[in-house]
């Protein structure tokens, strides 16, 4: 009875639609002994949406007053600890006195009045979310039947849905539009069992999403979130470009996923680039880069993804095919996962190149010029597999297997001439070669990682086993004509050899790392590694016998050996992690033993090296968004076996290499500093860094040039005094919305390089500095452009040729811009200019201005298609070019690049998302 009494509606008056403010007062009393309930909370809720409007506390006498209440209808809500809530409808029409309001202790109630919000429904911002499993539907029901069960939903016979009183005009599945704009497609074809949640929100057009304004007449959008394991679908992309004559550039990607299985395939065919996939495509296909955490340095690093089949290494005109497939799966609550991939690359290149070199000798300048042609075909099959098993919350196991099979076939010719100090031709040479290489590389890595209950304690062990098999064969023909001082033909020399190489190397290694927290801020990282490498190298040269076959052994240019390398290394680093300071200090030491067994003369030699690698780093965060770091790293530089073996290599008879068994271990000190600051609110950033490398016992070259023949012989040698430095500074600022971005860049590098020529030490001091401001403006959906002029100065001075000036100014810059035109047309263009001052060493100069432009039209629903007319290098100016300036030579290297072409390109991407087959 009492319960009923509390919820009886007391007042039923008509409200007058006049806004006025009136006080509402009353007294709160206990039903049993009419005690005044001091401090009881009296709240007024708006009756239509039950939001809290005002509240007050009862005085000592139980009186309450809510002074200014707008005319309207309310619910009076009174609460007091351990008393039942009191609720009463209330219409405020004038000053209202409620008299005594009686509260009932909960102990007197058999049950309470409860307005429960179902946990199956959640409100997230403007979105209402329903947990699908909370609404029972029959087996095999579609989403449509599920929707009918949801509160506020109606579905009519045509399948049209109304949600919260509004027409549903869009159904998304996992946020993506499901097969066009017909909502029934999704609801009638998807199984209700696959649904995790159903979300309802206002449909907003793109315009409204930008402005946040709604007109109130929009419909509703229903988003069906599928359960993880019900996800199925595919997407793909087709890209095809041609000039209907010589050039093609095409690509196809297809990706299918079902549950947690994912299968991707791709194929590319192009002769305008190296055919490698860009980062975005790789990401989409799940060809992920791998990340590793390096306990020693305290940083994450990533590896993988780089090989020779990319545009960076491309020289000459390409002709490429690539293809690949990937399979990945996760199971057992993601505790186990596997990732398998196969990749095939085939890259053919043809190149015609020129290398012009000015040699600086103590006695004067000489010149060597080379004209070369080259045809190469590189192929690679790569198989990668990864299996991960999270054994429990603390232990995990990872197995990585990688197998790469590469082969290449290269043929080419070189025509060279050597011009002496008196500008007389000293020699002319012709060389042709035909080389085949084959490499089979297998790498297996097993990692076990154990975490412990103690935070930050960790133990990780990696076992590694790898095999590399090499087999090369090549025919090398060189004929050289030598001239005497009067320019008269003196004599000719011919080298015609077949070189065979057979090598096999096996590596076994183990590395174990412990991480132990010493305190809340200090940590010790300790590791130990053992590596054993056994390799066999059989390199043999043959000359033609009387029967014209290569069967006469040439011992001078042959070498057969086995090498065993053993190394033990250990590192100990103390790491400090404070609030504003992170620091680390420690060192690694290692011993390396090389046992060389020369099979030609049955001699053995041993080399022992002791390496230390001290390091220290400190990283400061003096205030938010500012970071300063200083790093030191010392590294022992150990000579390679190729540098140590006193062997001759006559692949180029005019440039003969020989090893040096007397080489000492070198040491490198590297110090680097950086300063980064980014002001987020001001959108202003400064990034600066600088580093210097000081080398002790650096390994450089000892060159001997015979001026009477033009032949150079060289061997590696230790030298002191080499160093190099670099700095980089960048400032960027956005002047605001719809205003330009400006930036300033300033960078440089330089140093000293010492080597030897004809017995004399040659030292070069060099530096390059460049200044590059940039300016950009981006107005969304209208236009954007970016402009970056640059100017630089290149200085070098050789101790051998003090009078020779090879300093030059380089300048140019880049521009990129695009404009959105009507009818979904877009025009874009880029210009890259690379200009430099001519230097005295060469008669001609290479300047490049590359201008590309394209016009494209988007088409189909969601702009899924695009047609582009693209013009590359409109000025037909593209060439490959690199310039090297050294203490003993200045060289310009030119090679071919794809220049002007026009392509008509078509792009289409499609997405077919979940559950269409679930009828």
């Amino acid at each position, binding site marked *: 009875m009492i319960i009923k009494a509390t919820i009886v509606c007391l007042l039923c008056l008509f409200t007058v639609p006049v806004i006025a403010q009136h006080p509402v007062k009353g007294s709160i009393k*206990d039903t*049993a*002994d009419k*005690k005044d309930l*001091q*401090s*009881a*909370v009296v*709240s007024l*809720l708006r009756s239509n949406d*039950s*939001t*809290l409007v005002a*509240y007050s*506390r009862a005085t000592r006498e139980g009186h309450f007053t809510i002074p200014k209440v707008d005319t309207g209808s309310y619910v009076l*809500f009174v*609460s*007091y*600890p*351990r*008393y039942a*809530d009191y609720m009463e409808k209330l219409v405020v029409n004038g000053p209202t006195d409620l008299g005594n309001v009686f509260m009932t*202790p909960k*102990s*007197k109630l058999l049950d*309470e*009045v*409860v307005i*429960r*919000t179902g946990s199956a429904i*959640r*409100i*997230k*911002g*403007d979105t209402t979310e329903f947990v699908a499993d909370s609404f029972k539907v029959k087996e095999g029901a579609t989403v449509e039947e599920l929707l009918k069960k949801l509160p506020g939903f109606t579905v009519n016979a045509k399948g049209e849905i109304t949600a919260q009183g509004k027409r549903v005009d869009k159904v998304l599945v*996992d*946020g*993506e539009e499901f097969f066009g704009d017909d909502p029934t497609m999704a609801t009638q074809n998807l199984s209700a069992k696959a649904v995790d949640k159903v979300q309802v929100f206002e449909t907003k057009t793109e315009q409204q999403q930008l402005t946040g304004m709604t007109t109130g007449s929009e419909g509703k959008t229903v988003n069906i979130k599928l359960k993880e394991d019900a996800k199925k679908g595919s997407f793909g992309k087709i890209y095809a470009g041609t000039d209907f004559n010589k050039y093609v550039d095409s690509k196809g990607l297809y990706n299918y996923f079902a549950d947690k299985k994912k299968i991707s395939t791709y194929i590319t065919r192009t002769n305008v680039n190296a055919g490698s996939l860009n980062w975005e495509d790789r990401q989409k296909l*799940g060809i*992920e880069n791998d*990340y590793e*955490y390096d306990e020693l340095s*305290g940083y994450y690093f990533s590896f993988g993804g780089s090989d020779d089949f990319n545009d960076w290494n491309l020289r000459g005109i390409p002709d490429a095919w690539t293809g690949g497939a990937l399979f990945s799966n996760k199971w057992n609550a993601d505790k186990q996962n596997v990732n398998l991939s196969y990749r095939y690359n085939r890259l053919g290149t043809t190149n015609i190149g020129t290398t012009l070199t000015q040699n600086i000798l103590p006695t004067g300048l000489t010149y060597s010029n080379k004209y070369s042609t080259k045809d190469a075909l590189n192929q690679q099959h790569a198989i990668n597999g990864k299996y991960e098993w999270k054994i429990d919350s603390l232990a995990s196991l990872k197995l990585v297997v990688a197998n790469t099979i590469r082969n290449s076939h290269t043929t080419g010719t070189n025509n060279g001439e050597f011009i002496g100090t008196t500008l007389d031709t000293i020699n002319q040479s012709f060389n042709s070669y035909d080389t085949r290489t084959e490499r089979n590389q297998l790498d297996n890595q097993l990692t076990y990682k154990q975490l412990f209950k103690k*935070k*930050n304690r960790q133990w990780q062990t990696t076992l590694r086993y790898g095999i590399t098999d090499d087999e090369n064969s090549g025919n090398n023909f060189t004929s050289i004509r030598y001239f005497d001082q009067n320019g008269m033909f003196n004599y000719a020399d011919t080298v015609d050899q077949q070189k065979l190489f057979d090598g096999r190397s096996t590596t076994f290694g183990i590395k174990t790392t412990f991480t132990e927290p010493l305190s809340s801020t200090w940590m010790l990282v300790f590791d130990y590694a053992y590596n054993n490498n056994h390799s066999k190298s059989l390199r043999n040269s043959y000359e033609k016998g009387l029967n014209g076959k290569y069967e006469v052994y040439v011992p001078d240019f042959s070498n057969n050996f086995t090498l065993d390398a053993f190394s033990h290394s250990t590192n100990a680093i103390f790491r400090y*992690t404070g*609030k504003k300071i*992170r620091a680390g200090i420690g060192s690694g030491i290692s011993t390396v033993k090389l046992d060389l067994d020369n099979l030609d003369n049955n001699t053995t030699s041993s080399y022992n090296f002791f390496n230390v690698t001290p390091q220290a780093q400190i990283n400061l965060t003096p205030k*938010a968004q*500012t970071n300063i770091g200083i790093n030191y790293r010392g590294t022992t530089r150990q000579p390679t076996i190729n540098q140590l073996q006193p062997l001759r290599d006559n692949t180029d008879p005019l440039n003969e290499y020989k090893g040096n068994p007397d080489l000492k271990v070198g040491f490198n000190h590297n110090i680097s500093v950086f300063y980064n*600051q*980014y*002001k*987020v*609110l*001001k*959108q202003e950033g400064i990034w600066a860094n600088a580093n210097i490398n000081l080398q002790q016992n650096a390994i450089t070259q000892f060159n001997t040039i015979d001026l009477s023949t033009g032949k150079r012989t060289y061997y590696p040698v230790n030298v002191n005094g080499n160093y190099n430095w670099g700095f980089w500074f960048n400032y960027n600022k*956005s002047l*605001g*919305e719809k205003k330009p971005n400006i930036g300033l860049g300033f960078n440089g590098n330089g140093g000293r390089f010492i080597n030897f020529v004809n017995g004399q030490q040659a030292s070069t001091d060099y530096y390059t500095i460049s200044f590059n401001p940039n300016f950009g403006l981006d107005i969304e959906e209208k236009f954007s452009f970016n402009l970056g002029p640059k100017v630089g100065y290149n200085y070098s001075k050789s101790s051998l040729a003090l009078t020779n000036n090879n300093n030059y100014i380089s300048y140019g810059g880049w521009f990129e811009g695009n404009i959105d035109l009507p009818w979904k047309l877009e025009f874009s263009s880029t210009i890259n200019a690379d200009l430099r001052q001519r230097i005295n060493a060469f008669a001609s100069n290479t300047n490049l201005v590359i201008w590309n432009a394209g016009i494209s039209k988007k088409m189909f629903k969601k702009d899924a298609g695009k047609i582009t007319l693209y013009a590359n290098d409109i000025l037909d100016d593209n060439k490959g070019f690199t310039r090297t300036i050294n203490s003993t030579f200045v060289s310009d290297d030119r090679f071919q690049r794809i220049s002007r072409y026009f392509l008509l390109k078509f792009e289409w991407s499609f997405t077919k998302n979940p559950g269409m087959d679930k009828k």
Partner: protein
Amino acid sequence: MKKHLIIFTIAVTACINTMAQARFFSSIKVEYEKTTAVRQLMKDLQEGNSWYEQNKDRYPVSVLSYYDFVGDSTKSLYKPGKDVPVDPRMWWRPSGDKNVVYNDYMKGVTISQKPVFEETFLMEDSLLKIKWKLTSDVRNIAGYDCRKAVGILKDSIAVFAFYTDELMISGGPEGINGLPGMILGLGIPRLHCTWFATKVEVFDVNISKVTPATKGKKTTRSALEQTLKKLAEEWGTYGSKTLLNFFI
């Protein structure tokens, strides 16, 4: 029957006696434990992005931080409490977690110190307005029966609060306020954060130190929001969701 009636009367009387002991406190010190469900948050921020799936192990599952609230029915101060170091190897750093909020309930004014990236703002404005709906769900937090209220902040952000009548302060974590009692539990699903009181002191609370922070660039709520909104547009969904931290 008679016997039953007697027992009933005794029970009721006993109840009323305990009832009379209902105590109300007007000055308190509360320690809140804030839990951020980092993985859920990152998943949300990077929705539809394979980046999350690839790197989820680099994010902690959740992160705890602590805050102290001191105040009475007229004013209160909310500020960071004891420090819990974040694992430096994890890819996640908190943002908007160092606010110092001073509320004056009599004048209806808040003075909040909000470090936002490189700038520290001192925002002086009216108390944060939240549309509250009361429910009758009750949950006991730190020994107090708390009623659940659902609030809508800025017309779109849902806030779930548990408040108790027994503490006569209309405050709560950060700038959340406006309920007829003290908020001891708070959840903001959009931020994947919850705050729960772990300690409530009601005796001998020294409120002399409840004074607003003084350092920072003076601003108003609308000016600060304008600044952040501009930023959010530049950042897309990720940014706008992250920046919500500064609105509360």
